[in-house]
């Protein structure tokens, strides 16, 4: 039990180009560009991805629930199965469970949606955990306070950027990891596992840079939509997802061209 297998990139021309760039010593920006170009077809369907849209919609509901008088009830209304006074890890667990329940029997589940679900858990943990100083033993009031602060224009931008930066990194690494570890060893692109690890980190940094574009518009979108429509619907979230993913893809393509 517990068996895991690792795969390779397909032997098609576009993916072998990515492999050749990794082997040839290309930088993260160029590899990200080639990867996103090869995977573009998959990204085009992002706005229709039920898991991704549900994740982003739920993320928008957290700060709004925290602004309500009753935090627990606010989260329950959004579909999270939590107690009346939830701590951070309870919210994180319930968040993931809520998406699983929404995609019951895997209807509409994709790897992209799955990666979004994981990225959201990680963002919540990192952003809220660092503000409450600890993951464990936090009071519900502390957690509510930290989430409610995300409802401002600036703070939601930071929250959204962190999420998209993780998602972008996961997506790029989802492909690139199928090739990178084949180029470790003496006389290879990466002499040691440490060098391979550095490359993976650099890919993360590049993803974070590319996600800066999200920070520029997400806060405004959140505040405006919430103000004008008195809440954010799944349809609103789908529209935001479409724009955000498009901007990320463009940024990854442009980024490699301009930061050289």
């Amino acid at each position: 039990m517990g068996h895991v297998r690792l795969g390779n990139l397909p032997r098609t021309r576009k993916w072998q180009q990515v492999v050749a760039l990794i082997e040839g010593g290309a930088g993260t920006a160029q590899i990200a560009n080639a990867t996103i170009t090869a995977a573009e077809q998959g990204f085009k369907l992002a706005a229709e991805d039920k898991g991704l849209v549900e994740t982003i919609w739920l993320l928008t509901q957290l700060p709004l629930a925290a602004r309500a008088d009753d935090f627990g009830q606010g989260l329950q209304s959004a579909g999270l199965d939590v107690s009346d006074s939830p701590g951070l890890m309870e919210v994180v667990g319930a968040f993931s469970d809520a998406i699983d329940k929404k995609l019951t029997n895997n209807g509409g589940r994709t790897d992209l949606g799955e990666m979004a679900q994981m990225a959201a858990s990680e963002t919540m943990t990192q952003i809220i955990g660092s503000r409450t100083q600890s993951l464990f033993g936090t009071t519900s009031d502390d957690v509510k306070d930290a989430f409610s602060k995300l409802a401002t224009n600036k703070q939601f931008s930071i929250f959204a950027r962190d999420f998209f930066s993780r998602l972008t990194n996961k997506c790029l690494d989802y492909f690139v990891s199928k090739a990178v570890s084949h180029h470790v060893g003496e006389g290879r692109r990466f002499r040691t596992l440490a060098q391979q690890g550095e490359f993976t980190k650099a890919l993360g940094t590049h993803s974070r840079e590319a996600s800066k574009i999200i920070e520029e518009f997400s806060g405004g979108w959140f505040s405006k939509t919430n103000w004008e429509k008195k809440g954010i619907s799944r349809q609103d979230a789908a529209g935001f997802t479409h724009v955000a993913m498009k901007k990320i893809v463009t940024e990854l393509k442009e980024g490699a061209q301009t930061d050289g």
Partner: protein
Amino acid sequence: MANERSILCGDVTGNALPFDEKKPLALRLWGTAENVSLRISDIRSQLLKDIPSSFHDLVEIATYVYCADQAITRGGDGVDNFGENWRRRMFFRIAVRNPDLWNSSPLKDQLIETLSFLSEDEYHFDFVKLEKQPPTQKHLEFDVDPPEEVMLFSGGLDSLGGAVEEAVAKSRKIVMVTHKPTHKLNRRHRKLLELLSSAATHQPLHIPVIINKDKSLGREYTQRSRSFLYAALGATVAQMFNLRRIRFYENGVISFNLPISAQVVGARATRTTHPQVINGFANIFSTLSGKPFTVENPFLWKTKTEVIDGIVKAGCADTIKFATSCTHTWEMTKLRTHCGTCSQCIDRRFAVLAANAKEHDPEEAYGVDLLVGERDEGEPKAMMAAYVETANEVADMTALDFFGQYGEAARVLKHLNGSPDTTALQIYELHRRHAKYITKVVDDAIAQNRSAIRKRQLPPSCLLRLVCDSSVVQAGPEDTDPEPVCELVDNYICIRGQCWAIRYEGNEEKIYTPDIGFYHLQILLENPGATFSASELDVIVRRMTKDELCASISAGETPADEGVSVLGQSDAGHVLDEHAVRSYRIRLNEIENELEEARANNDLGKSDALETEKGWIESELANAQGLGGAIRKLGDDRNKVRNRVGNAIRRALKKIKQYDRPLSEHLQKPILNLGHTLSYVPRDGLTWSSTTNQNN
């Protein structure tokens, strides 16, 4: 969704299937078309009473699901569509004894919820009445001491640890249910039982289950639903002994199975004993039996190292070498029982070394030594790299970093008893302990093999060479001269390995996949202001690449163009011969006269026809003429060469445009001229080098 299939199980009709498919998968456990057989070794003859019909259904449903899981492929790795085909959509129509029960809520919902999480597929079930019951054997009374515990025994180290804990350390009466996927393990299982029986106060009862199926039904290796079959068999046995519990024994790291690589998404990391699955099984069995039924994993908070430690402390270290962890059973021989390269082998060997149980797990049983064995390219090396890198990272992570990196861990929090905070802390500590065991094994091995690493005596692809840079180990810090810093030139275009490296104006270097156009471009860039004809460039590039060309053709062959002028001598004559040209021109004169006459007679129809004919002849003559009005030749080699060189350079420029916009903008007309002659004339006296360093 493309990966859909209907599965007809037993004697059922294929009417009104939900998917448009020509040939549904038919599975039969009995009858003339039998293609699956379930042999629960001696359940029917050894046990005290009949299997309850609902549990009989359960075992058959689990068998059908398990067989369909192996018969329907997951459609490749799905790189281009984010794994769309990985998740299959399966419709089962199954003949059962209790269709109303199985079609009712909550049982059907629980079944779907559990299976869909376990294998990440979409399940639909239609249970129909089993009309013809298979002949059942009269069950014999058998003198078996009622056991206290039913456990699932795979023959691996974790389940062995469980058997040792129950039967030896706690002296309990146990039943071990084993699903045997291959006969290759029979001898090792027998030996394990023999050793366990001699160490235990009460001899464990072993119930092996064998499922045989047609060869054509074994197409998919992932077998994510195996633990459902396993649990169903265990629950059925427990039911017959009036027990309300079964136990899986699996270390927590494998139960949670957090991804060791970014490509391992969702159930690509198996969820066989994930707490959510375990709870799902318990719900199904409780509903079936009408009473609370528990499924447990007592090793959830143990690492594999700690499980092995328990086996050794219980005085059963001699059993370790007979436990089988490897999944590559087809590679197994009597002496070499483990491949040493699959994820389980790596996990097992690390745990054995970390638990200081090396002497109980012979080194020669592994195809590849964990630390110093040469690993093949591809998955063997990638698996090791992923495993060790994950441990490296986790060993130094804070709890915040850990949960900020492994979102998958959040999936567990709602499915374990206790507060989410406590559970999260336990998960973090478990993984940190595991990571520290791994890194300690690696650190100790480096210390022991420092000299061999320094002398490069170990294979380059072994773990110790992958984690140590030999050049660093070779020279201590005190005797290391700082490497001379070679300053890179601002503009270079050079070949590196198979690829091209180009740096423009001191920007980041860009790498390009091979294309002959980069050779042409290199010549132009290195000779600013010089004018080349396409033929000249072609000749130079052919000389440059001649070695490659010679190397790429087989012995005895001659390169087609060697020694021959690239312009060649031959052509296929003129596009139009003199006679044709003369005829066209005469006809043009005639048309002019006829046109005048037609216009004078106001004959519009005739003048239109003549205009059309005139236009056609003029275009024919224009197409046939080259520069200066001379008639072109067919298959002119100069044209071919010009096109070939121009196209090659344009292909290279297209690649540059994708990755390096400043350079792409620089290489435009009039700086780069790709007309009748080719030249590169930068305005500011910019120069290019074919090497990266200024010293070169």
